[in-house]
């Protein structure tokens, strides 16, 4: 298998959104017809190229690829969804909605179609309706962590942090060892001022992922802020209303945590260039 097909497969598995690279890699494959080397994966590659093409606005490429897919899988619901997506991309959301509705009429449990309908609402800026729809979707599909994550980000876009935190808890419940979700949860809690939970979650992040810079920065910020609030007297500062000082660790522990985070950050950045090191040290007030 050629190296570009391998790279495409890597991008596909990482689920990162890199349409420009996908198109660049697939262009020679499509032109020379060497895409067939992918074997059974060729249809996945076509789908990937299609989505990248509508992301980049290369509607002609998208249409050509869609033609190939349609020839192979005529009545497929998955291809129908792609038709809906290209309608979204060229600015016919009503057409797209009609297609998705047809898909749901045929099979009410079609997860992909329901998700597209929610995405469609999101693309039209109707966040509150999208949230409503997503909540009722999650009533039936409670084990869909991607939907919980989406709901969390919809709430975040509307500054509803407590609700977002709840959704992230659901995500963590399903993937407890994934430190990225703990990180997001910690950051949401930090934003809300729940510093005790934030500190705990940041500690979980560095426990699950060795030398996680974002985690250590979080520990330092959270520990220092708790120290700051407690030293100015509990209850007086408005920050302390969101968490109980009793729930936070002892003062000595907090100081040691902050110190540890500083040490680790300095150690992690010791291999970088001088400018970066200076910036980090200035921030850490060394």
């Amino acid at each position, binding site marked *: 298998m050629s190296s570009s097909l391998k790279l495409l497969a890597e991008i596909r598995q990482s689920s990162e959104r890199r349409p420009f690279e996908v198109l660049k890699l697939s262009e020679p494959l499509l032109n020379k017809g060497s895409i067939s080397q992918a074997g059974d994966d060729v249809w996945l590659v076509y789908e990937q190229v299609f989505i990248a093409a509508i992301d980049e606005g290369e509607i002609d490429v998208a249409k050509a690829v869609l033609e190939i897919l349609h020839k192979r899988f005529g009545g497929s619901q998955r291809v129908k969804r792609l038709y809906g*997506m290209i309608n979204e991309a060229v600015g016919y959301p009503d057409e797209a909605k009609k297609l998705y509705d047809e898909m749901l009429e045929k099979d009410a449990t079609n997860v992909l179609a329901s998700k597209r309908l929610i995405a469609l609402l999101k693309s039209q800026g109707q966040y509150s309706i999208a949230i409503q729809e997503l909540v009722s979707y999650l009533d039936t599909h409670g084990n869909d962590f991607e939907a919980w994550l989406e709901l969390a980000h919809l709430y975040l876009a509307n500054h509803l942090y407590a609700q977002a935190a709840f959704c992230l808890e659901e995500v963590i419940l399903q993937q407890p060892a994934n430190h990225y979700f703990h990180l*997001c949860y910690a950051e949401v809690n930090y934003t809300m001022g729940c510093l005790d939970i934030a500190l705990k979650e940041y500690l979980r992040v560095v426990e699950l992922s060795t030398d996680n810079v974002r985690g250590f920065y979080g520990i330092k910020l959270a520990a220092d802020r708790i120290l700051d609030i407690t030293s100015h007297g509990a209850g007086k500062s408005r920050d302390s209303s969101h968490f109980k000082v009793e729930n936070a660790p002892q003062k000595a522990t907090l100081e040691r945590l902050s110190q540890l985070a500083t040490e680790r950050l300095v150690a992690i950045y010791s291999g970088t260039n001088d400018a970066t090191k200076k910036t980090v040290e200035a921030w850490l007030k060394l």
Partner: protein
Amino acid sequence: MSSSNDSGAKLISKGIAVVAFLFMLHSGYSAREYLLYSKSIGRQDPSLPIDIVLECLGALAVMTIAVVLGVGELRPISYEAEMKRYSVDGIYSRPSFQVFNHRGRFLHPLKPAVAITEK
């Protein structure tokens, strides 16, 4: 270069595994022959001679190692090492909820169109 060397080494270890397997079959055959022979001469003690046992165990050890070495690239089993392969962009992206009415089409407007040739 290194990958071709790797595949060569893999081929060799696969070959060694096959040879070791043949040795194991041979030790089994020897054991059967030996037992038939001892029965026919009416020997009381049915235990196998040490060379057959050694051949069997040695072949098993060599085959296990060769199979492990020849199976392909071994990956670390810790979840953390697995998570290192994913970026934060990949984890937070929700592919089913992507929207497409964004500025993407205006970012690279002058790219030459791709001609599709179907095979």
